[in-house]
């Protein structure tokens, strides 16, 4: 059974060997990798830049198959979008550990000049390819992906000079796949975190970032925050000292502000003192309007929310979100829309009514979820996570994975905050449930219908249809 204990040096060494054995590219020595990191200038050190910033930093998502194109793309995003932090988004084959397919797609892309993969196949580019990328661009770069078994990807990219690595055993399992048990992904990510810890101990802090938006569809803030804190704790055990907790915009200003505040508060409280906790706010991760002007409106609301609550960074969307992978120009446009709003609001102090109450409700729910996890594991957070998901005490809406029950069903209340219509076996107390019920009854009365999955169906497409709450008769 999996346990939340630090891998020993011997275990790390052995895992390292196993991981590199499966690699389609040459391994790199750890010493040499540390030396490469040490030679990077200050402005490319991810954790330092993020943790010392005195304003909200912007970061897009971006990944194309060929190295030169990826360099150009990232240069466009800093040049035309003023991105503070850079991403490298990994392709789907690599996320699936299908390196041969990724290699074929990369080969095809080189032949045709078209992008035959939906991201950057970092493993196939190898340590040298990654280093060329890091050297060529002018900001810190993070690996962003969705890989349940990211051991080799982490080994290659961290040796290749990346200093931040997104994901975790829950947040990169439940939303992405039905193939893995949590016990498996927790073990995989213990290696990723231990490797990050090993770099950290050599003076190269690797920033780790749980993927807060999860399934991207009406995820209740308390669930997202509890899961990110669990992943932060697991990472801390392995020696990670820079953790960025993530949260995806739901679109209700008060709830979003309350959620970020709750995440900051609880993150600092739950994670060990030696860990520096930062936060990331993701602009809306659900369906976007196809109309680019409307999409920019969604982006601007996310930026305004971030300007009010000031997370450490914001992940931006592009006005072409509804159409798939955006052009570099559209991606830069999303960054500019965001930074315009951030700057116009930066000197203003905005007080929103109701934030405290909402924050209290979120914190209370997070605490009760985390209590349940600790209890289920007799104090061990790794075991507790497995047990809690098995019993449905912890759950997420719309999981493709059987590792979560998926018995919770979310819906927006009358002013668009995400509540739960069905709780399944989720470990929140009856008073919290009553509050959710009451809020959904209010909406039901406004709409003259019973609270049901129909509200959820209407909510899922509401933002792409031009509003926040899916009201009946909207189409």
């Amino acid at each position, binding site marked *: 059974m999996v346990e939340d204990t630090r891998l020993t040096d011997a275990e790390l060494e052995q895992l390292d060997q196993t991981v590199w054995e499966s690699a389609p590219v040459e391994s790199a020595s750890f010493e040499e990798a540390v030396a490469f990191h040490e030679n990077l200038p200050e402005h490319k050190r991810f954790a330092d830049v993020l943790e010392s910033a005195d304003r909200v930093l912007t970061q897009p998502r971006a990944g194309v198959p060929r190295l030169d194109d990826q360099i150009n793309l990232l240069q466009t995003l800093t040049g035309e979008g003023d991105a503070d932090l850079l991403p490298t988004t990994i392709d789907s084959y690599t996320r*699936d550990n299908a390196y041969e397919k990724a290699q074929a797609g990369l080969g095809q892309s080189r032949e045709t000049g078209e992008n035959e993969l939906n991201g950057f196949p970092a493993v196939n580019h190898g340590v040298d390819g990654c280093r060329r990328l890091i050297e060529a661009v002018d900001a810190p770069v993070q690996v962003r992906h969705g890989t349940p078994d990211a051991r080799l990807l982490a080994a290659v990219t961290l040796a290749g000079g990346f200093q931040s690595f997104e994901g975790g055993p829950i947040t990169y399992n439940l*939303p*992405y*796949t*039905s*193939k893995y048990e949590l016990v498996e992904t927790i073990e995989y990510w213990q290696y990723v975190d231990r490797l990050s810890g090993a770099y950290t101990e050599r003076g190269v802090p690797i920033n780790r970032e749980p993927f807060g938006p999860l*399934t991207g*569809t009406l995820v209740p803030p308390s669930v997202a925050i509890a899961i990110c804190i669990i992943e932060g704790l697991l990472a801390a055990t392995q020696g990670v000292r820079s953790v960025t907790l993530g949260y995806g915009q739901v679109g209700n200003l008060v709830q979003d502000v309350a959620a970020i505040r709750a995440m900051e508060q609880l993150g600092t409280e739950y994670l060990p003192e030696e860990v520096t906790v930062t936060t990331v706010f993701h602009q809306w991760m659900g369906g976007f309007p196809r109309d680019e002007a409307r999409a920019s409106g969604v982006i601007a609301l996310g930026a305004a929310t971030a300007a009010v609550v000031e997370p450490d960074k914001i992940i931006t969307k592009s006005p072409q979100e509804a159409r798939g992978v955006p052009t570099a120009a559209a991606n830069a446009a999303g960054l500019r829309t965001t930074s315009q709003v951030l700057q116009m609001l930066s000197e203003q102090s905005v007080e929103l009514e109701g934030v405290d109450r909402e924050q209290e409700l979120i914190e209370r729910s997070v605490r009760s979820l985390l209590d349940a996890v600790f209890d289920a594991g007799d104090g061990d957070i790794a075991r507790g996570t497995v047990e809690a998901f098995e019993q449905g005490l912890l759950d997420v809406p*719309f*999981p*493709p*994975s*059987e590792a979560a029950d*998926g018995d919770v*069903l979310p819906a927006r209340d009358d002013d668009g905050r995400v509540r739960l219509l069905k709780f399944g076996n989720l470990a929140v107390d009856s008073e919290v449930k009553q509050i959710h019920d009451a809020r959904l009854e209010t909406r039901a009365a406004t709409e003259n219908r019973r609270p*049901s*999955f*129909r509200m*959820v*169906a209407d909510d*899922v497409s509401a933002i792409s249809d031009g509003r926040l709450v899916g009201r009946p008769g909207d189409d």
Partner: protein
Amino acid sequence: MSEPSVVVGTIGSDAHVVGITLLEHALKEAGFDVRNLGAQTPKEAFVEAAAETDASAVLVSSLYGHAEQDCDGLHEGLAETDVDPMTYIGGNLAVGQSEFETVRRQFREMGFDGVFDADVEFEEVVATLRAELGMDERSTRLTRARS
């Protein structure tokens, strides 16, 4: 008489489940007995579940553009069982911007009884199934008897 049994799921390597989850609720509410196979379901699992539940209908969801490859052999598999369910498919069925009518024809030729696009309303799917399975006559009588 027991409720008609239907099998739903997302086929292939596709991990999109929001639609299929909500469809499960819609069908249950409309009086169907639903087996939801969830995400990334191989075609063999649809066949197996259809046989196991004596399904009246199989509803396949696909949103990532590879439905044609993923469904290849599904109907042949069903033909080898003792059940003969109606088959439906819905979602984004082709990569790129093909005309929906072309897509519909193509999937009808593969053996599907009905083809829905990604914007279809749950009500329409439910109504289609109820009509095809002759549930409306029964339920009209029931509603009258209750009221």
